[in-house]
Every structure is written in C-alpha cells, then in structure tokens.
C-alpha cells in the first residue's frame, strides 16, 4: 500500500514538473507560431494555361518576404484541393523543372539550384545562403508539365524554409491557378469575283451599276463622236483577273465603220471605231483615270492616251494578284468620212472577266 502511495506521489510530482515546464515554455511556443507569416502579393504566372502541356514556365512573384530569417530553400507544392491531404493534380509534373534564372528577393543573388526530386513540387535551395531576404521575390522555373485537365483549378502552396531540406518553414502562402481551353478562331474566305459593267457606277460599288447604252451622237466628217461606259472589278484570285472585250465594230445593216484593229489616233474624216481605258485623252477629250484602291491596270494596247483600238477578244484590263476594286472608264470614239452610208450604227460589246484562283 505504501509503495502504491509512493508511486502516486512520484507521478504527481512528474505531472507538476511537466506542467510547470510547459507553462514555462509556452512563451517560446507562441513565438515560433507567430514567425510563420503569410507571404503577400503572391502569384504564380504560367506561360501557358493549356492543359497537358510540357515546357511551361512558372513564375513566382511575391512582395518582400515578411521574415528576417535567411531562406535556404523554397517550395511550391501543387495540390488539387486546399482541403484535406494534398493530392498532386493529375498530370502535373515538376520532374523536368529547371531554374530559368537566379531568383531575386530571397537573399543571396547566386547559388540557388533547382531540385526536381518531388514531381508534385517546384523546389529551389541554397544551403549557403545567410542573407536575409529583401525586396520583391521572383523565381522562375522552366520545363514544367501542366495538369492534364482543361479548365481545371489547382493550387500552389508556397513555403520558405530556414534550412535547405524544406523542413523548417518560415513563411507560407497559397495561390490558385487554372488550366484553360484554347480558343480556335476560324474564318473561311471564299473565292470572290465582283464584276459589273454599265454607264455609271458610284465609286467602285457594283450594287450601284446602271445604264447600258452609250450614244456617241451624230457622226461627222469634221468632229469625232465620243462616249463612255464604266466597269468595276475585284477578286481575291491568287493571280488576279483579266477582262476581255467582245463584239463587232459599229454596224448598220451591211454597212460598218472600220475598227482601229491595230490601234491608232483619232482622225476626223476617216472611218474609225475604237476605245481605250486611258486616263487623259486629249484628242478627243474623253475618258478618265481609273479609280479605287485596287492594283488593276489597263492593258498596254488600251492604256495609251489618244490611241484607240478595238479587236474582239482582246484583254483590256487586268490585275496580276488579288486586288481591291477598281473602276475603269472606257472611252469610245467614232469617225466617219464623206461616203459613210447613213444609218444608225451600233454594236453590243460584252466584257468578260476571268479570275485566276
């Protein structure tokens, strides 16, 4: 019985001593908890958020660390959730991670190395660092493989350590990250050819084309009869387009006014019919320069001032590449001589545009 009482007494003593010790140590315990402060202004920037992508760069940015303890290692541990035990996001892999550059704000400016031993964490260490951290922190890892899931949130727990074995934590903080889907923007551009002919077109807008009769008036042996029509064209054909003119010369029954089939100047008191797309004819004054932002031009035989020509099937205008719209003014001339039989002379000209895709 006495022996039992002695044991009880010893036990009480031990309890008292232990209690006293705990009470005595309690100030120190509270100090240790207070030093694991939260890292502020923290973020982890991914070079790409595409899921299941290798070679991704992860950049850690934080405000100056709150601690005045030298940091010897740092870790970002990636987890699927912040509740419960940390599960590495499926597909995330740090095994090939590299340190893209020496970190800033962690103390020593050099001597930091990567540690890729833990597939679920990005780690660096510098066992010899004794410099207290200051300034904003930047750490850049390369060679990281993103989690597999698309549009999935995952988390990174950032911890600094006072040892080089990621054991004695100093400060910590958590960031949320996310993979995301890629947006593929697609547009189909179809083949186009816009072409119209008439006697008036507003700007180069084929929707406004109107008219189809060019009246040269009365032929005379002392003056040249003139008139104009217009045409507009554009295409996205890789080698542009060409426009041909097709038809007969001016005809009245069995009588004709000879066409300038090889080109020539307008001469009164001669039988002549011709046209051109030149910009500034003076003899006679007819036609006008092309308009529009396109790159098309009049064909050589139909683009010289005061030289008129007409031969069916010939190309009168063309573009050698895709072109915006141009409007061409086609000037027509007719001359007669004294024996040109009377009558109403006319011809129907058809312009054909061919785009080359």
């Amino acid at each position, binding site marked *: 019985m006495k022996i039992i009482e002695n044991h009880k007494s010893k036990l009480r003593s031990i309890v008292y001593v232990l209690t006293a010790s705990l009470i005595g140590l309690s100030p120190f315990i509270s100090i240790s908890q207070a030093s694991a402060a939260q890292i502020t202004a923290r973020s982890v920037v991914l070079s790409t958020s595409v899921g299941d992508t290798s070679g991704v760069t992860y950049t850690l940015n934080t405000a100056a660390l709150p601690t005045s303890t030298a940091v010897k290692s740092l870790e970002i541990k990636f987890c699927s959730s912040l509740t419960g035990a940390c599960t590495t996001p499926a597909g995330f892999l740090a095994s090939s991670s590299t340190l893209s550059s020496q970190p800033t704000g962690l103390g020593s400016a050099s001597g930091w190395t990567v540690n890729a031993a833990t597939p679920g964490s990005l780690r660096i260490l510098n066992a010899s660092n004794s410099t207290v951290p200051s300034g904003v922190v930047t750490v850049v890892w390369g060679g990281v493989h993103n989690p597999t899931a698309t549009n999935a949130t995952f988390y990174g727990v950032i911890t600094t350590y006072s040892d080089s074995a990621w054991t004695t934590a100093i400060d910590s903080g958590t960031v949320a990250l996310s993979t995301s889907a890629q947006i593929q923007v697609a547009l189909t551009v179809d083949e186009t050819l816009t072409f119209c*002919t008439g006697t008036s077109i507003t700007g180069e807008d084929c929707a406004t*084309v109107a008219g189809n009769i060019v009246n040269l008036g009365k032929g005379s042996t002392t003056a040249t009869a003139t008139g104009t029509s217009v045409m507009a064209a554009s295409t996205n054909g890789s080698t542009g387009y060409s426009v041909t003119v097709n038809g007969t010369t001016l005809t009245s029954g069995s009588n004709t006014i000879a066409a300038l089939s090889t080109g020539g100047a307008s001469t009164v008191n001669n039988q002549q019919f011709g046209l051109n797309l030149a910009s500034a004819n003076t003899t006679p004054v007819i036609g006008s320069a092309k308009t529009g932002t396109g790159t098309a031009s009049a064909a050589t035989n139909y683009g010289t001032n005061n030289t008129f020509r007409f031969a069916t099937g010939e190309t009168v205008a063309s573009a050698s590449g895709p072109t915006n719209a141009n409007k061409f003014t086609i000037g027509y001339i007719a001359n007669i001589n*004294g*024996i040109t039989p009377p009558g109403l002379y006319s011809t129907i000209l058809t312009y054909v545009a061919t785009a080359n895709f």
Partner: protein
Amino acid sequence: MTNGAKQHMLKTKNVVHLKRATYILLAAISVLAYFPTVVSASQVTNRKVTMGSSVAGINTTYQFIFTAAQSTAIKSASFTACTTASGTCTPVVGFADLNTSTLTAQPTNLGSASGWTVDVSTVGSLRLKNTSNSTAPTGSQTVGFSNVKNPTATNSTFFIRIATFSDDTYTTAIDTGTVAASTAGQITVMASVDEALTFTLANTAVDLGKLSISSTGAGTSAMTVATNASTGYSVNYSGSTLTSGLNTIPALSSPTASVQNSKQFGINLVSNTTPAVGSNVSGTGSGTVATGYNTANQFKFIPAGEVIASASVPTNSNVFTTSYIANIDGVTAAGAYSTVVTYVATANF
C-alpha cells in the same frame, strides 16, 4: 443443367456477341465510308473558268483550267454552280437549267485523251465522265463545255465548285476547288450617220464676152458634189439656149465641135483646146461626167435638161468644171444674149 445444355448456352451467347460485333463493324464502315470522300479531297490549284460570254441568260461556252492535286485516275468530274463558294449549294437561277451542255472537245490532261462523255442528267451542274479511264491526270487540265446557259441575273457573281471523282458516279471525290465568275451587262454603243449631199456652185454668172464671127465666146462655172447615198447621185441641168428678146442662138442638140461663124451654144465638162476652155473633173470622189459631155472639144446643150454628171456609189467630193461656148454668124441679131441654167443634184439613198 447438363454439360450439353451449358455448352449450347455458351454457343448461343457467342453467336449473339458475334452478331453484335458484326453490326457494329458494319455501322462503323458505313459511317467511315463518308469520310474518305471528304478527308482525302485536296484542292485543285491554278483554277479558273473562262466564259465565252458574260451576258446573262444566254448560251455560251465555259472553259475550266485547273491543276489536279492528286494523281488518282479521274473517272468523272462535276462543275456545279452555286450562289455561295462554300456551305450548302444553292443552285444559281438559270445556270444550265435545261442542261443542254456539250463537250467542246475532249478534255486535255484529265487522263485518257478520249472516251469522255458529257452527262446532262443534273440541272445546274456540268458533268463529264469516262468509266474506263485509268490514266492519272497530268499537268494542267482543260475541260470545255459548250451550249451552257448563263445565270439569269445581270452583273451577278456566282461560284462554280469543281470536283473530280475516282468513280463514274460523282461519289468519291479526289480533288475539289471553287472558282468565282460573274455575269455582266452588255454595253450598246451607237452612233448615227445622217444622209449627206454636198452640192455647191462656185459661180452665179458666166460672161462669155463679146461674140464675133471670128472668135468663140467661152466661159466656165464650177460645182462640187459629194454624197453618202448608197447609189450615189446625178446632176441634171436645164435652161433655155442663149436668148435676147425674140432672138436666140441655137443650142447644139448633139456633141458638136465649136465652129466659128455659125450659131452655136453648148457645154461640156472636160478640158478643151478648141477653144481652150475648161478642166477635167478633180477630187477624190468617184463621180464621172455623163456621155455627151465628156469629150474634149465636143459641146452640147439640151434645153429640156439632161444628166451631165453622176456617181453610182457613195462618193467623196468631185469638182466639175462646166465649159460654155457660143458662136455667132454674120446675121446674128445684135443684143445681149443670156440664159439661166439650173443644175439639180439628186442623191439616191
């Protein structure tokens, strides 16, 4: 359950599984059958269509030039007109709506040089096929159709979708491509040429001078004539002979030489030596002097009128010089003799 019954059940299950697998396989094959048509088709390059005419609604030619992307033998090809270049094809109103198209010629470089026939069974689509072709296309292909009706709308863009097929039923596409084309308005150019007759007389009076029995009175007048009349013109004159009151100098009713000391009045339109008067016709026109008035030194005058010059076709200007001569004899009564000669030009349009 006996072993036999168990084996029978097992066999039945196996058969069911086999059937299911077969059905699934068939379904998969039937679905996949569509994909080669789409997936394997490549785009034809350097493609264009040249229309014989861009006039809306008329029949014309269509020539397609393109370069096949693949070397698979082509057994059929189609050229389908649509209102858009891609997506569901909406036929273009009027295009080949009766499809009377023909092959302009056997296509070139499409494979076999012969054996291609047009297929007009589909409205709005130009087709050709060659069931027996086993030759791969080479270089640039040319396919021409004739008698193809253009779309009805004027100044309107439309698209032709080109497709080549490895079968002759236009099913399994090899290559595809689209070209854009456009109808266009026609330009009517017109000019009027009016009827023309140029007729001018340079003189209103001709003085033959003082007549004597030993000299011939002579003088000239000139007239210019041109016309664009289809059968030319004729110039007629008329007037009395030289007259002074009741006295006259007789006219030469037939071509006669000038003879002094005789009563004569006559004209001609050529250059003369007896007397030296007049000029031949000049100018670039085709007018001529009428018979009876075209011989040198022979003069004539018919008071009732007669044609003295004419042209049978449209003619540029000619200048005719009329020579007048008069002779008197010793008994010719004194006086001032005169006449008014009227010239009339008639163009024949």
